[in-house]
C-alpha cells in the first residue's frame, strides 16, 4: 500500500508540468537509500525526456546511469534505450562527454551513446 502511494507520487511528479518537480525527484528520489525508489525515480526522470531531467540521470555521479547499484544503472540505461525520441538524450550524452569533470561519468556516457547508435 505504501509503495503504491510512493509509486503514484513519483509517477505524478514525472508527469507534472512544473519544472520544480525535477528538483523534488532529485532531492528525495535519486538520493534515497532504497534501490527500488532510486530506480523508479530514474525511470520517471528519463520518461520526462527534458534536458534538465536527463542531466540528472546522465551527468550526475552516483545517479541514474552512474548509480552504484548495477541494477539501478542498467535499468536506467534500458529505459533510455526504450525512448521513442532520443534526440534530447543524445544531446545530453554528447554534452556530458565533452564537459564532465569525472572520467567515470564521461566513460558511462560514451558507452551509452555507443549502445544507442548500435541499437538505432
Amino acid at each position, binding site marked *: 500500500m505504501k509503495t*503504491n*502511494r510512493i509509486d503514484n*507520487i513519483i*509517477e*505524478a*511528479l514525472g508527469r507534472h508540468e*512544473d519544472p*520544480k518537480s525535477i528538483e*523534488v525527484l532529485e532531492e528525495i528520489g535519486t538520493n534515497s537509500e*532504497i534501490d527500488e525508489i532510486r530506480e523508479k525515480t530514474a525511470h520517471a526522470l528519463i520518461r520526462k525526456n527534458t534536458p534538465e531531467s536527463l542531466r540528472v540521470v546522465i551527468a550526475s555521479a552516483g545517479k541514474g546511469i552512474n548509480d552504484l547499484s548495477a541494477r539501478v544503472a542498467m535499468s536506467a540505461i534500458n529505459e533510455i534505450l526504450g525512448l521513442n525520441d532520443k534526440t534530447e538524450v543524445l544531446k545530453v550524452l554528447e554534452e556530458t562527454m565533452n564537459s564532465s569533470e569525472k572520467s567515470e561519468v564521461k566513460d558511462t556516457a560514451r558507452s551509452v551513446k555507443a549502445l544507442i547508435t548500435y541499437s538505432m
Partner: protein
Amino acid sequence: MDKMKISQSNFSIFKPMSKTERQEAHSNPFGINFKGNILASDVFEPTKTQEASNSTNPFATFSKLTNKSKMAASAIVGSMNSFNEAFRSRLNSVISFGRQIKDNIVSSWEKAKNTEISLDFRSLANSISSKFNNQYSVNNLLKRPVDDLHAMFAIEHAAYKESLKA
C-alpha cells in the same frame, strides 16, 4: 406320428453361454482358439470311425467340408458373443457418463436453489467513490501543486524507510 409341442421343446441351444460354460459344453480339452475365440464345435471327433465309414461313404469329401464349416460357424458365433460383450461394456460406460452428468446437473440446480443473491448497494457505492476520491491516485496527484507532492513524497518515503527497518 409323434406330435411335438412347442412348450416341450428344448430351447437351451439358443441360450447365451458364458466362456466357462462354453468350455465345459464341448469336449475340446485344449481350448483351441480360432482368431481369439474358443471353438465351441467338437473338432476332436474320432477319426477312425470316420475313416472306416469313409470307405463306404461316397460323400466323404462332403463330411470334411462340413467339419470345416462347423469351425467357421463356431468362430462366427464366438465373435458375435465377444462383440456383444464389447458393445455392452461400451453401453455401460455411456450410461454411467450420462448418469454422472444428470447427477451434476441436479446438484448444481440444488445449489442454485439454495443460494441467496444479495447486492449491498451501500458498500458498492462506497468502494466506487473511494476509488474515484483516492487522493493518492495519479490523476488526483497531478492536480496538486508540486510543493504538496514534495511534502507527501517526503512523508511517504520516511514511513516506507521505517517500515523496512521494522
